[in-house]
């Protein structure tokens, strides 16, 4: 039931993408936080997704913790009652049953016949997408628009992971590992989208997140995209709202080619830049995760943590093309969902 304070909390959370945005919602809403963790050996790679789903007319509403074993591709969807979900108002502190998720770390207590995952992980040096008064996160001014179908937030492009999880019967040490956190919320996932993410490049501190989707807009729709490449402490942004343009977006059976250009700030100087992404799909690691559709949590998302992405960033300086970064990101998350022809 909507309370008088809910509207104020929702207003405050415009500038707090990490926090729960569903206060006051009773139906037709979802919110999910995506935690990617990879251990130091890179043998153990997991995505852990806590969330809440409020079905249309309140039907099938529940909370959940979904896990993806990035090495095997196996997924588990742990369903919890709606009442098992709780969130601090205007803060990143989520509980789903006995599991807790914050920006500082996660506590997992999944002990079910289909999966056992117990332990505590801590995160150090999280690097959120910058939030300012006029640009509250990765969606920039679109964060202020109250009728978006789906909102997106990047809570940490890259951070260190420490701690241990007991997975199945074995203890897995995550000390020295790397992590990434993002989230989505709103009415439903877009009708078509491509998403890729990796923060395992040749050197630590480089992270890529990229998504393109069909965005319903005041009776029409457009192809919106957001790409962020964190490199040597600089976040290079290519997005519809920065004036960037997609030059090529092509999906083949095994690869996704994505090229774009647009204005960036490099070394304090505003200049034109080009970014090329080539994602290599690895079908062996592909499994189905649950994505929120309008009426139910349906198996629609093709996701893996076994893809790789070749990234090349160059800028135009004094009429010369200077390569800023080139490298391959490993253990990449890759999703291609919905009717892709609408965005290609």
């Amino acid at each position: 039931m909507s309370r008088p304070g809910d509207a104020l909390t929702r207003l405050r959370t415009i500038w707090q993408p990490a926090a729960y945005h569903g206060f006051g919602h009773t139906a037709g809403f979802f919110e999910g936080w995506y935690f990617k963790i990879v251990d130091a050996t890179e043998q153990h790679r997991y995505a852990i997704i806590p969330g809440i789903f409020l079905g249309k007319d309140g039907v099938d509403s529940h909370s959940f913790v979904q896990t993806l074993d990035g090495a095997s591709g196996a997924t588990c969807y742990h369903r919890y009652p709606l009442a098992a979900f709780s969130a601090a108002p205007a803060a990143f502190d989520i509980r789903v049953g006995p599991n807790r998720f914050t920006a500082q770390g996660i506590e997992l207590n999944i002990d079910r016949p289909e999966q056992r995952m117990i332990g505590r992980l801590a995160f150090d040096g999280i690097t959120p997408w910058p939030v300012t008064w006029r640009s509250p996160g990765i969606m920039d001014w679109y964060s202020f628009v109250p009728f978006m179908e789906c909102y997106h937030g990047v809570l940490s492009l890259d951070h260190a992971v420490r701690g241990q999880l007991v997975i199945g019967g074995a203890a897995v040490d995550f000390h020295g590992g790397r992590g990434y956190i993002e989230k989505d919320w709103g009415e439903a996932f877009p009708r078509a989208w491509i998403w890729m993410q990796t923060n395992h490049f040749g050197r630590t501190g480089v992270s890529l997140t990229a998504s393109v989707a069909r965005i319903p807009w005041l009776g029409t729709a457009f192809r919106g995209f957001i790409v962020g490449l964190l490199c040597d402490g600089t976040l290079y942004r290519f997005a519809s709202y920065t004036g960037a343009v997609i030059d090529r977006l092509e999906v083949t059976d095994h690869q996704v080619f994505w090229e774009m250009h647009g204005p960036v700030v490099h070394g304090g100087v505003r200049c034109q830049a080009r970014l090329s992404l080539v994602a290599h799909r690895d079908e062996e690691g592909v499994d189905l995760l649950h994505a929120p559709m309008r009426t139910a949590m349906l198996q629609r998302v093709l996701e893996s943590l076994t893809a790789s992405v070749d990234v090349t960033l160059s800028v135009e300086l004094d009429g010369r093309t200077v390569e800023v970064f080139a490298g391959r990101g490993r253990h990449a998350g890759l999703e291609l969902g919905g009717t892709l022809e609408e965005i290609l």
Partner: protein
Amino acid sequence: MTGSEKFQRTVSNRLLLWSVLSIAAGALLQATRSPFWRAFGQQAIGWGAIDAALALFGRRGLARKVQRGYAPAEAATDLRNLRRLLWFNAGLDVLYVAGGLALFRRADETQRGHGAGIVLQGLFLFKFDAIHAFLAERVQKTGEVDE
């Protein structure tokens, strides 16, 4: 000072305040790199400049009338004309908002920024014009002005 004179001064001052805020905010937004916010700010500057000119023009005209002796009958006529002008403007404001929304639907970020800027200015002016049209009617009847 008649109620009409006081009311006209209040309307001009309020419009001038909004125009100063608009121009200042628009100027600040020119420092951003976002095509949306720059366009939004350009609208704020443009509309702010027009509003400022109208407010200053109104204040100067009123001052001249007061200087040469502002007869109550003339003040009453001006108030009635102002009320009509405000209602007419409120109608125009609806058109501005509609035009802004049409721009806001476009694919280009700059056009969306201009559209959002027009919508904001149009909505403010609609509220401003409608409220002051109502208040003008009350002043006509009672001669009293709410500060």
